């Protein structure tokens, strides 16, 4: 059984077609990178996976179950970090982390929570209104990593983090991989993708145009790096 299985996903908003043909299969224990320029449909695809958007056509399955119909059951097994983290100004970071963890329905693991708070150097006693973008992102990251899930979905999770914390994030993802968890990572940071991803899906204008390992992609599209491959997709 696949962790993620998307077949012929189409999503329209009125007349506008956001996704015209998305296919993706992610296996257990795999780290899948999801690349594409702004507006190509990465976030829309992820929202269909999370069941916050309903697919117009096609199948979207997680762990063999329908992402829209069985959303609640499925969400017990996944953790998600959005690209743009907005929090409640009058709650503290620690309160929000506990809230997210407790709403998962399983017990909070205090040791794990403390570990990630320290790794990401987050002061949980501050009100969210005082957090910078990077700190708000840390709140979401700690809440995700402190959860014991089978699938972790990250939507441009490190856009506000410094290189040191970026490194921490990568190590945390590698640890998940070592534990046999699946990860879907949407990112613009090529070095991050090169280091972490088993396979890479590239989306363009609502359609998946390439899906392979890093080596194969570079071999198929003459170039030196992933960045060359990525740019070729859109410039050529």
């Amino acid at each position, binding site marked *: 059984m696949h962790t993620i299985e998307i077949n012929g996903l189409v999503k329209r908003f*009125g007349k506008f077609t956001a996704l015209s043909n998305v296919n993706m299969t992610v296996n257990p224990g795999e780290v899948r990178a999801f690349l594409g320029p702004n507006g190509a449909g990465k976030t829309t695809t992820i929202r269909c996976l*999370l069941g*916050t958007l309903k697919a117009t056509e096609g199948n979207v399955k997680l762990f063999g179950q329908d992402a829209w119909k069985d959303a*609640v059951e499925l969400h017990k097994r996944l953790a998600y970090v959005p690209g743009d983290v*907005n929090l409640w100004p009058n*709650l503290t970071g620690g309160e929000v982390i506990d809230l*997210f963890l407790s*709403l998962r*329905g399983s017990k909070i693991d205090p040791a794990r929570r403390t570990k990630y708070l320290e790794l990401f150097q987050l002061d949980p006693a501050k009100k969210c209104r005082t957090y910078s973008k990077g700190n708000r992102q840390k709140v979401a990251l700690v809440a995700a990593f402190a959860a014991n899930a089978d699938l972790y979905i990250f939507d441009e999770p490190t856009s506000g983090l410094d290189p040191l914390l970026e490194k921490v994030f990568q190590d945390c993802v590698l640890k998940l991989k070592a534990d046999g968890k699946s990860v879907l990572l949407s990112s613009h940071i090529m070095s991050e993708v090169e280091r972490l991803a088993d396979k890479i899906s590239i989306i363009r204008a609502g359609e998946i145009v390439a899906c392979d390992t890093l080596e194969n992609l570079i071999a198929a599209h003459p170039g030196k790096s992933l960045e060359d491959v990525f740019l070729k997709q859109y410039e050529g």
Partner: protein
Amino acid sequence: MLFRYIRLIIKRERINSLVWLLGIAGLMIGFAPLFSNLFGTPQEMAAIAATMNTPAMIAMVGPVYGLHAISSAMVMSQMSLLLFVIAIACMNIFFVVRHTRADEELGRMEVLRSLPIGRLTSTLATLTSAVSLNIKITVVSAIGLMFMPMDGITVAGAWVYSAALGAAGIFFAALALLMAQVFSTARGATTGAMATMSALFLLRAVGDAYVDGNWLSWLSVMGLPMQTYAFYQNRLLPIVVMLAVAAVLAAIALLLCKRRDLGEGLVPARKGAGEASPLLLSPLGFAWRMLRGSFIGWAIALFSFGAMYGVSLGMDDFFEIDMLQDMLATMGDIPNMAQGFVGMLLMMMGLLSVVPVMIAVKRVWGEEKHHRLESLYARAVPRWKMMAAFMTMGVLFSIVMPALNALGMYLASQGAANLSLGQFILGGLSYLPAIWVMLGLCVLLVGWAPKLGWIAWAVFGISFFFNYMGRLMFPQDVAEFTQRFTPFGWIPQLPVDDFAWLPLIVLTGIAAALSTVGLIGYRRRDIKL
């Protein structure tokens, strides 16, 4: 999970809810003694109630009932229930939109929805919390009123009176819940709910005052609370009807919520212009754009208020109300009742016009607080120009609002007070220097200590109290003395008093000084990053 979500809402609302609870239930109880003191013997009260029984009054405050058996409790209910219904409606609309569409629009809902909670959880939790807040208000108010030593108070009456309010609140919570599904922005949802409330108010006003029988009032939830005839017949049917309608609306809202995408509404977000109009491209144009909506809203509101009171000027028996006469007496020697009333109204409306002016000036701090001015000041925009732009808007508001109000009053009075349009406008505009002092105070606070901005509201509250409530509650000499602590107390009350330049010039000077010092501070202090 529902329970946990409710706990989140309670945590976020811990202070807000308390303020609303104490505010509404507290005033329901706190107003009561006022009514038992204001009105004397049953005969006097019957006379007052009879004079309240005019279309204009009924359109404003609601229907009159049980004239032959009138009591203080009934007068209280007839004169204040509608006011509280408006307050509780606003509370519920803000509450529900804050926890549904606003959270969704700001992207907070997205993370929550990635957790194993159902599509309806947030909606249900919001509804449950809102209902429970309304019930709390009902219970506190009912218990408080039950034990009020006042004629006409009965246990059943206290509960029906309070429950009518609570049920109306629950209706507006359900309405807002529906609007939050229909519109894709928090602003759209709030506006939709508020517009519906205004329409229902109008329906009620027409139904109560101008239509035979009360069938039209029964069609409006703004009219139903008063149809309970609290402290008289204590009818339960209106409460049942309100709750039933609320249940239907909530069911539709839940159905819509279950089927729709996150972030989407039935009405899509409007598209704007792709290019900025040249008007927007200066600090002044920017300030106007930020305040355009509130300008239009307040202009309509103040014109309508003026017109509403203007209508009542033509009604002679209107002035036989004791309370009015008490207030008018504080104005000294008055040539005729209607003119005295105009003077009092213009003062009240002058006070009210301060609110949009203060909002206009404080907006510059609002923009700063949300880090939006940062990117403007990073460009070649002098700070004083930005502040001056918002001040200019404030001055514009301060002239347009009282003038429109006076115009509305003039047009609707149809010559009843024997005053020319010029006299109305001059009377309205004579409060300008006092309004400007408040404007200057806001500039001063934003310039030097924006976090102390509440002081301006406190000064406004005190001004309102001394100039309006103070006249009712204090002996005349005390009232006249305490008024002098506020800028408004120094303004000659046209058309009754003689026009006097000196206080106007002095107040304008104070306003200019406050503004200048504020501008200096604004150039010197750190911009919040």
